[in-house]
């Protein structure tokens, strides 16, 4: 839908061809980076990484719900940070659900934890979230500096979420599983996938020191895992292309052009008036709150595209505050934004749906508290580093 909209925007002159091309050139490398990360995560799944993670957590938790929640928090935080939030939602959530069910633990808190952490734990690295990739390109930060500044907010936000979950789901977590349930076979270590991901991470740091685009490192990691699957005939070339989600990549490019057209035609003036300058604590808090609000109205992807050009002149601090808002904020609305929610309501009218009251109550507890703590942590990190 965004592709024809972008076509119309160019055709009607809402955006000049030059601006559209500039936007596409700016987003091109980001989209390539995203494709590499998607392929990397997909073939980690093919190598059995997520199944092994499920088996490890099951054995470690041994049917104790609180231990399982702790393990899920650690696992979902690391997976989201390294392999992006898509991997947590699409690949890890079913594994966590199966693990809880198999060990006789109520799955609800653990599935909710996956969905919340796919947002909250996507602060750490540029690869963790598409919003980060977009902001990373705009911020001018190096890969390692981005990660260093976001480490403290990442930990702080996850810590607050953990405390909220322990209280909110206290009843479900008190229902211990009957002893002696199957905790599964000891998993086979997916060594190749782990080493490849480890080398890719190390590659990001090295590449950043030498000024090489980290997208190339991600592409190399993706090629290694995809190549192995191709050689072992576990996948065809078509699977690799499909894993990169070409339709979605086109959507991101088109969305960028549409948003640019809207920003050029007046939105920049409106939002420019409410964007504060500077990177003092009150300014950062205000930027993050504004970003969270916008993300909840229209989804965090368009929100970050709209806000980045406005925040970038104030420096990396403001850009990272926008990220805190657009990444943590979507936990407030089931489906990530009111726009998506309305769309789902129209498409799936007769389907059973989530208990919105419960989801929103959890969001109202978790989002403002973790966002505020994360912004303070970011402010502190900016002061120290």
């Amino acid at each position, binding site marked *: 839908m965004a592709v024809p909209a972008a076509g119309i925007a160019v055709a009607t002159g809402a955006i000049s061809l030059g601006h559209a091309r500039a936007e596409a050139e700016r987003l091109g490398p980001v989209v390539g980076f995203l494709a590499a990360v*998607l392929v990397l995560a997909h073939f980690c799944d093919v190598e059995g990484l997520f199944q092994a993670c499920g088996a490890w957590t099951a054995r470690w938790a041994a049917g104790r*719900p609180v231990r399982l929640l702790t393990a899920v928090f650690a696992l979902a935080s690391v997976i989201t940070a390294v392999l992006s*939030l*898509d991997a947590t*939602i*699409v*690949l890890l*959530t*079913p594994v966590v*659900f*199966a693990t809880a*069910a*198999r060990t*006789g*633990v*109520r*799955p*609800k808190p653990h*599935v*909710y934890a*996956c*969905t919340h952490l*796919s947002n909250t734990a996507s602060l750490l690295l540029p690869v963790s979230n598409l919003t980060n990739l977009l902001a990373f390109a705009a911020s001018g930060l190096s890969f390692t500096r981005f990660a260093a500044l976001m480490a403290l907010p990442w930990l702080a936000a996850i810590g607050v979420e953990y405390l909220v979950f322990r209280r909110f789901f*206290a*009843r479900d977590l*008190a*229902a*211990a*599983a*009957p002893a002696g*349930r199957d905790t599964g076979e000891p998993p086979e270590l997916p060594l190749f996938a782990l080493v490849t991901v480890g080398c890719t991470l190390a590659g990001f740091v090295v590449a950043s020191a030498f000024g090489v685009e980290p997208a190339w490192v991600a592409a190399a990691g993706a090629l290694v895992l995809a190549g192995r699957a191709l050689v072992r005939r576990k996948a065809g070339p078509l699977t690799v292309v*499909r894993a990169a*989600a070409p*339709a*979605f990549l086109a*959507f991101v490019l088109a969305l960028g052009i549409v948003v640019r057209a809207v920003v050029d035609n007046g939105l920049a003036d409106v939002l420019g008036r409410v964007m504060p300058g500077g990177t003092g604590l009150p300014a950062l808090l205000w930027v993050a709150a504004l970003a969270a609000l916008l993300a909840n109205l229209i*989804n965090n*992807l368009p929100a970050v595209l709209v806000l980045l050009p406005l925040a970038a002149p104030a420096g990396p601090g403001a850009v990272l505050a926008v990220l805190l808002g657009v990444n943590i904020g*979507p936990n407030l609305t*089931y*489906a*990530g*934004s009111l726009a*998506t*929610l309305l*769309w*789902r309501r129209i498409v799936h009218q007769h389907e*059973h*749906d*989530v*208990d919105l009251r*419960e*989801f929103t109550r959890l969001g109202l507890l978790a989002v403002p508290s973790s966002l505020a703590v994360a912004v303070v942590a970011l402010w502190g990190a900016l002061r120290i580093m």
Partner: protein
Amino acid sequence: MRVIAWLVEGTWPACVDAVRAHAPGDAEVVLLHVSGPDVPAVAHGAFAGLLGRRGQDPGDRLEALGGTSATALLGAAAERLGRPCVREERSGRVEREVVAAAEGAGLLVLARDGDRSRLGPRSLGPAVRFAVDHAPCPVLLVWPEPAPRLDTIPPPPPHHHP
């Protein structure tokens, strides 16, 4: 007479043991598990938030996995019960499905699902509270683990003279 045992993850063994202890030998025992729609729906929602960047909706996988795990739970419960029984899997709004399943039954057995550290009304969560309040048959409400001591009840309020 038909005895319905509503089994939930984590607390079901107490219900099975209560059926063994209290259901008449000639009663027809039904082991009931209800899968709620909310957990898969959370995964559906998170996937919708990705704006379709991947093909497979994890919510669908959760629904399929939920069916498998309910079957496994009922299997383990039937083994623990050690007498002939009917296994019933339902899905929908949990508390309402339980009440519907209890229609015409001689006894509904269920376990407390709230704060079980002390005696009192908070030991019933919303789902069990609804089932107890609306059950169209006698109810046997059990503690999933040994009941807390009597001194967990707060002292009575001072006597009030109007």
